[in-house]
């Protein structure tokens, strides 16, 4: 599957900024505007569910419950895993301190 153009552009932008071809002040104002309003731009996409109303049935309710369970369990697991990784690294290397 090809990589979306936005992600390619994002990585190129990061490289250009890292090597100072593009300076932060060149794009900061514009990027703040875009990021602050991203939920406005997405709103029309949400309205698209108007055409998908036939999906809202009992199965959909099951999906919502699965979703809630997955988010909660993932938070638990990610937090524990990351803490575990950080503990390993703070023992091995001095660069990463165990910030508490």
């Amino acid at each position, binding site marked *: 599957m090809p990589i979306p153009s*936005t992600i390619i552009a994002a990585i190129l932008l990061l490289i250009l900024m890292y090597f100072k071809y593009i300076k932060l002040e060149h794009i900061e104002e514009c990027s703040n505007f*875009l*990021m602050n309003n991203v*939920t406005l731009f997405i709103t029309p996409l949400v309205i698209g569910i*108007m055409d998908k109303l036939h999906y809202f049935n009992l*199965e959909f309710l099951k999906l919502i419950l*699965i979703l809630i369970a997955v*988010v909660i369990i993932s938070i638990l697991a990610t937090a524990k895993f990351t803490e575990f990784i950080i503990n390993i690294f703070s023992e091995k290397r001095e660069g*990463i301190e165990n910030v508490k």
Partner: protein
Amino acid sequence: MLNNELFGIVLTISLYIIGIKVQEYTKIKALSPMLTASVFIILFLIIFKIPYSNYRIGGNLLSFFVAPATVVLTVPLYKNINTIKKYFVPIMLGNLFGIIFSALLTILLCKIFGINRELLVSLIPKSITSAVGYEISKRAGGISEITVLFIIIAVLVGYSFGETILKLLKIKNKISIGLTLGANSHILGAVKSMEMGEIESSISTVSITITAILSVIIIPLLISLI
């Protein structure tokens, strides 16, 4: 009269502004203006019997900006480049783990409860920032509009319970807190981390972008395995 771009644009922006006012007035951060605006726009279109296709002409013009807004997600990455360099391995591993764990758990639960593939694919990109999640779902054969809805619900769940779960687990490490909130409930996770402290905030901002970039590669791979 409604058959032009202006209708969709004006309707969306004005209800979005009302959404912002509602959020400010109620002081409930989880009440995203996007949510309020969406509900009212849908009600408006239904009550006045305006076909969705009339709205979409203007709506498409607004959602055009989703792409550039996704590209500039890089800017917070650049601003926090020193944090990334310092904690590169934990950030990468933590986000990678978060994506794979949550995708596999979703697949497992959906299989157990007999959810069809189309809806399963729509559910998997739920913890990615909406612009990228929409794109992944569309490309993988999901219903991208429903994915956006799932993303909103996931964000609200993470925002409402994230801090409590972290407290129950007695997680005190700031990197772990920031990463978990950013990777699982992106934008509101970052809002929450901002309330907690500087390291949490910058790690969680970084995690939103890293999760998005890694997901673009990993999630289609995982979906192709189902």
